[in-house]
């Protein structure tokens, strides 16, 4: 989510964003299980717990939580200023390489081989639209962990293409 400059606001208890209405490349970072929430959901408890969990997270762009255990699904969505928001897990740090435009994806296969080391500023390939061709530039040096799209596919602007461990 690091490139999502629209993340400027905080909102709480936003309506569920599911199915077609879920922005396609959101990060659902918050995956902690809230236990003991059988039967009727206590919205206040839930909100409190999520808020407390989230309040000191500095590297967090967005929190999304949905509970469907009761008859009424409840979603809590928090959107933070995205000053720094590389996902992190178990001490490791990651960064996405995003698509620079809309078009057909052409990856440099050697560069994006799993485990390859890449340097900030490197090109990993191109995205070609009808009237432009844009280089896919590595934002931070690291190692290729996962390729998220396939060669030749159509990709939109900002779509995450490659995940790096940095």
């Amino acid at each position, binding site marked *: 989510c690091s490139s999502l400059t629209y993340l400027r*606001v905080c909102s709480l208890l936003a*309506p569920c964003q599911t199915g077609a209405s879920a*922005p396609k490349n959101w990060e659902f970072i918050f995956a902690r299980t809230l236990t003991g929430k059988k039967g009727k959901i206590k919205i206040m408890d839930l909100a409190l717990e999520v808020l407390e969990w989230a309040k000191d997270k500095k590297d967090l762009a967005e929190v999304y939580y949905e509970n469907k255990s009761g008859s009424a699904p409840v979603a809590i969505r928090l959107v933070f200023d995205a000053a720094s928001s590389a996902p992190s897990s178990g001490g490791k740090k990651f960064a996405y390489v995003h698509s620079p435009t*809309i078009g057909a994806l052409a990856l440099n296969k050697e560069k994006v081989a799993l485990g390859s080391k890449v340097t900030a500023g490197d090109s990993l390939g191109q995205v070609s639209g009808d*009237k*432009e061709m844009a280089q896919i530039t590595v934002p931070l040096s690291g190692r290729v962990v996962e390729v998220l799209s396939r060669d030749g596919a159509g990709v939109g*602007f900002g779509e995450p293409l490659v995940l790096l461990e940095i």
Partner: protein
Amino acid sequence: MKVLVANRGEIAVRVIRALKEMDFKSVAVYSEEDRSSSPVAMADEAWCLGASPAKESYLNIGRILTAARLSGAQAVHPGYGFLSENDVFASACEDAGLIFIGPKGSVMANLANKAETKRLVKKAGVSVIPGSEGPLGNAQEAMTQARETGYPVLLKASFGGGGRGIYLVRDEGELSRAYQMAQSQANAAVGKKELYLEKFLENTRHVEVQVALDIKSQGQAFVERDCTIQRRNQKLIEESPSPFLGEQARAKLLEAGLRAAQACGISTLATVEFLLMSDRKTFYFMEINKRIQVEHPVTEELLGIDLVQLQIALAMGQRWAPVAAKSDARHAIEARINAEDPAHNFLPSEGVVTACQWPGGPGIRVDTYLTPYSTLGVSYDSLAAKIIASSPHGRSGAVARMRRALGELKLEGFSTTASLHQELFADSFFAGGEQWFSTRFLEEWLGRRKFN
């Protein structure tokens, strides 16, 4: 059929609704800022074009055509604003084998020059605002023309639009300097400095005729819309029919609208704008808009028709068949809820929708793209929602309904023009609608109310 909607906000929602009702697939395109917006959620598929600046997204022809190709769309609806009246875009769509839901690119190229359009319309026998016959050659020619027309006059950019690039000249002393400034402004704005000259008419109302024409230019005109409530040439309230037009004058106006559109080679929906003089029967052609307009729901609610579906069907080659074109005592009126602060000179306002409850019940329609917790920025135009009230009990019935609806509206998180509408619709002079007032009414009223 799969249709790409090359727009955003409420008009994208409006078009997607029409497509769904016609059982067509819809493709939304969006800038990063609009990622969580309603049209993206509603469309069958959605493609991100680029960052917020319009030239990287909603004005980027190459990226929109790429999205059309990637999605397999067969047609493009341009909405209003952005590329909707851009002949290069229309032609590029045609070249890419896409149906452009609007006029042919060649027709729009012909109409880009407003001075030439005016000449075309005059030739068809429609009265136009007195002034130069086509573009002016130089300042000297302007002076000769101004003397003939009589001061005050307006200098207008031939390639301007939307009320921009217009210079008022009150007497001959001002003319040559104004000519220079208007030229350089026009050049800066559109790269073309050509000007034409018109009589400056005062105490006029803005009335416009919605027309629908098929591929053979067969079609019809609908009862006029009256858009006299404006601020700085931006419409704020529109209604239909005009309270100041008798049946005879109406018949003439509608006929003129249809004739003007046919003269312009229109084979789609268009709106022909006129100035109405205070004798309530003299009117002059002003310009022609070749897109669906913001205020089209006024006509839809007056007549119970669907103009956007009609526009799409006509673009798909459907031939015209008569549609209900008038409706007894019915009246419809629209209030634009803009994210602007009427207490601070209509400064655009941004924020998050912390609460929204739209009015409902009989005779109320709301067109919006906002939902609870939507973010509202200032990158694009400020239109947040349109409330349309219609009533079988004439203008006073529609006004009463609008007053009721504005009382039900709850929209929090930013400033809007709703408070202004509440005052306006409670104002006995405006609500009464008995006495003539002109397009200057709102600004004078605002001055008195100390709103700006």
